[in-house]
Structures are given as structure tokens and as C-alpha cells.
């Protein structure tokens, strides 16, 4: 019970259901999230297709034994430069990922529920301008605030099909809300009322995914997954705000244990985000691009003790204000500690992230802590 209490404390202490943010998240449906564990993050996402506690490949669920629960907290510290404007000191603490899974007794099946960010859309921007109303030139201050995200609630089932082959499938329920505030102030005029409008935009969508994990030899595994998401529907109250076509995604990866204490993993992902562009453009939005992402990592350390995890990742970003596609490069590190006789694991990862392109440059630190317990 104390273990569960710790998990609950971690959950309650964070703003729910949000993840890492970015200046590039102003566009499109937001900044895409990564449904992976702290371990996978520390390894640059290289183990995303092999890690049972990540939500990329449902086949990995098949390897889950007794009930385990994971909760995590992530803090980002950001600076960015865009079109000669330098912004420093941005910070957020979020709850990016949660996971629970267990095997089904006397069957080759396991199932898992996970909760992650699909796209984060939080910003608070203030601009000054002047407008002409009734023949009079007036200064205005506009404030646009967005707070919220689309979350990905996944229900997955894994099947130990035959020895060394696991398959899995999952259903993804995309939902979320964004509190959108638009204010316009007329600081130099008493003739005009300030405009303040607040809306809660609700979003919903569905997705399915499937994956396979195959270990031809004990020291090596290969994995692949595919995911197809439908449309993200947006509405305010009963008003339909439109929909955005969501991508089909593919991923493939390789895991090698070259030594009992050395594990290497790499994962490549392809997301066909360009399908969203027509819908985004129709709403005055941004360009959308198909993306590649590849992450690799090495984990040093045995089954017990404190491992050292190192990783790197390169990714293209899906949304841009121009025809130039921005990219992201990161290096990562992390470790883990076990407690309570192995029934609790505390993991930490740190990422140094560099995003560039489309006239902006962003530098960020992302710190993630995760606690996994086996009640």
C-alpha cells in the first residue's frame, strides 16, 4: 500500500496529462509527445520498441509478468531564439507518462494500460500592435494563452505466440482539452472595452496499433510496429471546429546484448504527418511534414545494481511555419535504483535537446523521474 501511495503522490503532484513543450508546439496540433518510459528516454528512445513499459510496440506487453505500475514526472527548462527574439527561463513540470500492466494468469496473454501525451499545446504569448478603428489609430495588446494537451490512453494486449515471438495489438483513445484564452486590451483608450474570451476546446480521436517482437537468438531481438490514427476532432461545446487527419506511423528496431552487462538498442520511426497539412491549412495553420526519427542507446550494467544509460536521438519535427522543416537532436543519460527487494524501481533520465530550423533555435533540458512498483 505504501508503494501505491508513493505512486499516487507522484501522480497528484503533477499537472495532469501533459508533456514536454516547445516553441515548435505553437503550430499544428501541438508538439508531439513520446510515449516511452524513463529508461527508453535515457537510451535516446532506442529501446522504445523493446521496452515493456513503453507504449510504442504493443507486442512488448506480452513480456509483462505480475502487476506493475509506473508513474513519472518530467520537468523541462527551455530557452529559444526565434526571428531575433530571445526568450529565456521557460520551465514546466508535467506528468508525461503512466503505465500499468499485468499478465493474465494461466494464459500466454498480458495486458496494459498507459497514459501519455500525444500532443502538447501550452503557450502564453503577448504581442503589441496598433489597429485603426472608426478612423482612430489605437494601440492594442493581445494575449493568447493555450493550456492543455491531447492525451493518448492506450489499452494493449500482448500474446506470447510462440517462444521468442510476441505479438500485440492496442487501441488508442485520443482525448483532451485545451483551455484557450484570447485577450485584447486597449491600454491607451477608455472608449473600448477589453476583450476577453475563454474557450475549452475538446479533442478526440481513435487509433490502433500492432506490433511484433522476434528474438531469433537469445542475445538479439528485432521488432516492428505500425500505428494508424484516425482524425482529431475539435469542438467547443456543441460547435464543431473541424478535424485534422492524423498520421500512420511505422517503427522498426534492433536490440543486441553484446555482453551480459552491455545492451545496445536502436529504433527508427516514420510518421506520415503530411496527411494533416490540408486540414491545418484550411484552418490557417502550419505546414506539416512526414518525419523520420532514429534513436539509439547503450545500457551498461547487470540485472542488479545501478545501470548507466546513454543515448542519442535525431528527429524531424512535423510542423513548421515555413517550408523549412525543423529538426531535433538530443543526447541523453539516465540510471535506475531498485528498492524494497526489487519491488520498486526509481529511474531518472536527463536529456539535452537542441531544436533548429524554420527561423527558430531552441535549447532545452528535460528531466524525468519515474517510479515503478510491483504491489
Amino acid at each position, binding site marked *: 500500500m505504501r508503494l501505491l501511495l508513493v505512486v499516487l503522490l507522484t501522480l497528484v*503532484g503533477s499537472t495532469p496529462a501533459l508533456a514536454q513543450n516547445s516553441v515548435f508546439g*505553437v503550430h499544428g496540433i501541438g508538439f508531439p509527445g513520446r510515449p516511452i518510459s524513463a529508461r527508453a528516454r535515457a537510451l535516446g528512445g532506442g529501446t522504445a520498441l523493446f521496452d515493456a513499459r513503453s507504449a510504442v510496440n504493443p507486442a512488448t506487453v506480452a513480456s509483462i509478468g505480475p502487476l506493475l505500475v509506473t508513474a513519472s514526472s518530467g520537468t523541462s527548462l527551455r530557452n529559444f531564439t526565434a526571428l531575433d527574439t530571445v526568450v529565456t527561463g521557460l520551465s514546466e513540470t508535467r506528468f508525461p507518462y503512466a503505465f500499468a500492466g499485468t499478465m493474465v494468469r494461466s494464459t500466454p496473454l498480458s495486458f496494459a494500460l498507459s497514459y501519455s501525451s500525444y500532443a502538447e499545446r501550452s503557450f502564453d504569448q503577448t504581442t503589441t500592435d496598433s489597429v485603426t478603428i472608426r478612423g482612430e489609430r489605437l494601440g492594442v495588446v493581445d494575449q*493568447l494563452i493555450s493550456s492543455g494537451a491531447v492525451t493518448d490512453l492506450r489499452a494493449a494486449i500482448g500474446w506470447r505466440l510462440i517462444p521468442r515471438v510476441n505479438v500485440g495489438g492496442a487501441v488508442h483513445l485520443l482525448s483532451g482539452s485545451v483551455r484557450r484564452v484570447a485577450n*485584447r486590451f486597449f491600454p491607451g483608450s477608455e472608449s*473600448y*472595452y477589453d476583450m476577453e474570451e475563454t474557450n475549452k476546446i475538446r479533442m478526440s480521436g481513435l487509433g490502433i496499433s500492432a506490433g511484433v517482437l522476434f528474438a531469433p537468438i537469445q542475445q538479439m531481438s528485432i521488432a516492428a510496429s505500425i500505428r494508424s490514427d484516425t482524425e482529431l476532432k*475539435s469542438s467547443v461545446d456543441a460547435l464543431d471546429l473541424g478535424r485534422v487527419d492524423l498520421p500512420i506511423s511505422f517503427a522498426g528496431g534492433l536490440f543486441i546484448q553484446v555482453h551480459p552487462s552491455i545492451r545496445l538498442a536502436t529504433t527508427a520511426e516514420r510518421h506520415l504527418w503530411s496527411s494533416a497539412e490540408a486540414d491545418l491549412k484550411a484552418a490557417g495553420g502550419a505546414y506539416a511534414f512526414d518525419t523520420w526519427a532514429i534513436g539509439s542507446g547503450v545500457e551498461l550494467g547487470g540485472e542488479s545494481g545501478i545501470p548507466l544509460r546513454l543515448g542519442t536521438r535525431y528527429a524531424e519535427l512535423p510542423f513548421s511555419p515555413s517550408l523549412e522543416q525543423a529538426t531535433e537532436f538530443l543526447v541523453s543519460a539516465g540510471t535506475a535504483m531498485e528498492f524494497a527487494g526489487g519491488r520498486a524501481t526509481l529511474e531518472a533520465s536527463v536529456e539535452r535537446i537542441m531544436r533548429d530550423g524554420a527561423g527558430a533555435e531552441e535549447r532545452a533540458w528535460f528531466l524525468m523521474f519515474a517510479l515503478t512498483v510491483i504491489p
Partner: protein
Amino acid sequence: MRLPASLSLLLLATACVENVTSPGICPDYCPPTRIQIVDTVIMAGVERDSSYRGYLPTHRAASMQITTGGTVESYGVIRFIRFSEEVAIDSAASTLGPVVAVDSFGVNLIVEARSPGTGDFELAVFRLPVSVDSTTTYADLQSTFVDSTEIAAASFSGVEAADTIAVIIPGDAFPTLEEDSAVAVGISMRSVEPAYVDFQTSNLATNTLSITRFVQVDSADGQLAARTDNTPVGYDSFVFPDVPAAGPAALGVGGSPSARAFLKIALPPRVVDSSSVIRATLLLVPAEPVLGAPGDSIRIVAEGIAADIGPKSPIKQVPDDSIAVYSGLTMTGSTDTLRIDVTHVIAPWKNDSNLVRGLMLRAVREGGTLGEFRFNSSVSAVGAPALHVTFVPPVVNGN
């Protein structure tokens, strides 16, 4: 287990630290959401309208307006409470004695407003029958504002609003004082050019209008001694000729007794329900030149109404310090369109569909001036009331 629990508490502490505020870098790094402003005149914005008279009768107004030289002339009328039969002989007022002789009377008047840019003026005081009351009309008093009843006159120069001016009346001005114990006076204005002056009336809580009597009494040692006593106002008002009625398609605001107008507003839902109204101006086209004292102005204020029950609709009062913003000012004789800010009435309708979508127009200094604004009603073929609305359409979109 101690370490993870402590760590969770640490995470709790850091979870509240957040700063996502940044300047907007537009258009590249701003969201596609744009705040747009629409400015339009809605000609059919007033659905129904009507006006009613009698809200504040002339003798309940806070001021009386005395004019000369204009299209309408008006006189002040003041009746004072009866004087005491005896006055105090000693300073402690412990001993009373009869009045032996009356030397004079003094009346102090507080100026509320006067015609701007005009020079000296003279006030003439006339003896009126003590029977004057709210039923007394201008026609009734025409025969009393003549030379034979003029009992005093005083010239003034450099008078401004809030000044107090005094008029001295001879002691023999009221031959019937002994029987009546009361006096009533009429006041008219004389000026080289058309002008007006407004005096505060006893209806104003701060006003202490009274008449002072300067008398002689028998003192204790058998000598005559000068003493004073005074008595407050029993009735004060002003009279003027009947004003021609407004046309059938015209509505009036102001005048005395005062008239108010009620307008039922019918703006399109996309403006009043979905959008944010940031400025709304009511446009009223005069049906005839503005009535009033020469050089005077009339300020019309628009107020929301709490319930639509016709002429007795309760109003949602505009604070006094906002009158200058939420009102329109026009001059006597003007035929210009009157613009009145009604943003404070219309803007709240978006968030509360239960609010009555109507407004009421009334004059400031209500009932105390001749000023009346008559405008074309919604049934007028031309020049019907319109609304100039500036609004921000919904800014929300899916991206």
C-alpha cells in the same frame, strides 16, 4: 521505501513551478488564431421603442431654469413657509417679541449652471400670490410678471456655477404679509443677449434655500432693535409656455416634466451572443432641432433596464463617475445626430442571456431644464435609431 517517498514529495514541490510566458513572435511563431475586429452600423438594431413623460415633475427637479431671449421663456417660482409671528429678541432666543417693522428681505440663490459666454445679467423679482403650487401654470402667472408687481432687481456680472448670489427685496414689498405671514416670489432674467441661469432648488439635499427677514423689534429697554429671522422654501419650481407636442414618429427625452425613452435592441446573434462587443454607440437622428434654453446643452445618458415592464421598467443605474462616458451631449437648436455610448449596456449580454436586451434614455439634470431631445423612432421612414457596433468575432479555432 523512504527515499522514493521523499522523492515524490520533492516532485510535488517542483510541480508548481511553471513559466510558459513569452512574447509572441508573429506571424511565424504565433498560433493561427487571430483577433479580428469588425466595425459596422446596424440600421435595424432597434426593434421597438417608446417614450413616456412624467418621471420627474418640474417642482421635484433639483434645479430651476430661468431663461430669456430664446424661443421659450421661463420664470422661477418660489413660495416660502410662513414666517413666525414673533421673533427672538435676545441672542439666546429665550424671549420672543412681535415684529415692529420690516426693513427688507434677502434671498440667496445658488447657481447650478448658466449660459456660457454670456455677460452680465439682471434678475427681477416679482410678488406672487402665496397660493402658487404645482398646478400653477405659466399662463396663470403671465399677469403677475409685470411692472406693477416687480419688487426688486439686481444685476450680476462674472457669475459662475456654484456661486451664491443674493437678491435684496424692500421691506414693503409684500403688503399682505401681515395677513398671510407668507411670501412668494417670481424671478425672471434680463440680459442683452439670449441667456439662461439654473438655480439649485430645495429638492437638492444640500440646498438650504430660504428667505431672510430683516426686522425691528422692541428690545428689553424699550428701544427698537434690529433682528433677523428666516424661513425655508415651501415650494419652488419654474414655469414656461406649453411646448408643442412631438410628431407621431418622434420620441422625446428630457424636458419638464421629464420624458424618458425605452429602446428594445435586436442585434444579430452573431454579434451579441457569439462575439465580444468592445464598443457600441447608439445613433439618434433628431426629429426637430433640440429644444431648450438658448446656449444650453442637454446630456442624454443610456442605462440598462433590469426588467422590461414598460414605462416603469427599473433601471440599472450608471455610476455618476461614468456619466461622461456613457452619454451623449447635444446643444439647443442642434440637428446633428446624437451619439451615445451604450457599450456598458450591450457588452454584458454575451455572458448572460437573461439580461433584458433593452435600454432607457434619460436626461441628466432631469426635469430641471427645458432641454428636450426629440429623435426619429424606429417607425420613421428615414433616420431611425441605429447602432454602431465594434465587435470581436469568436477567435477560437481548432488549431
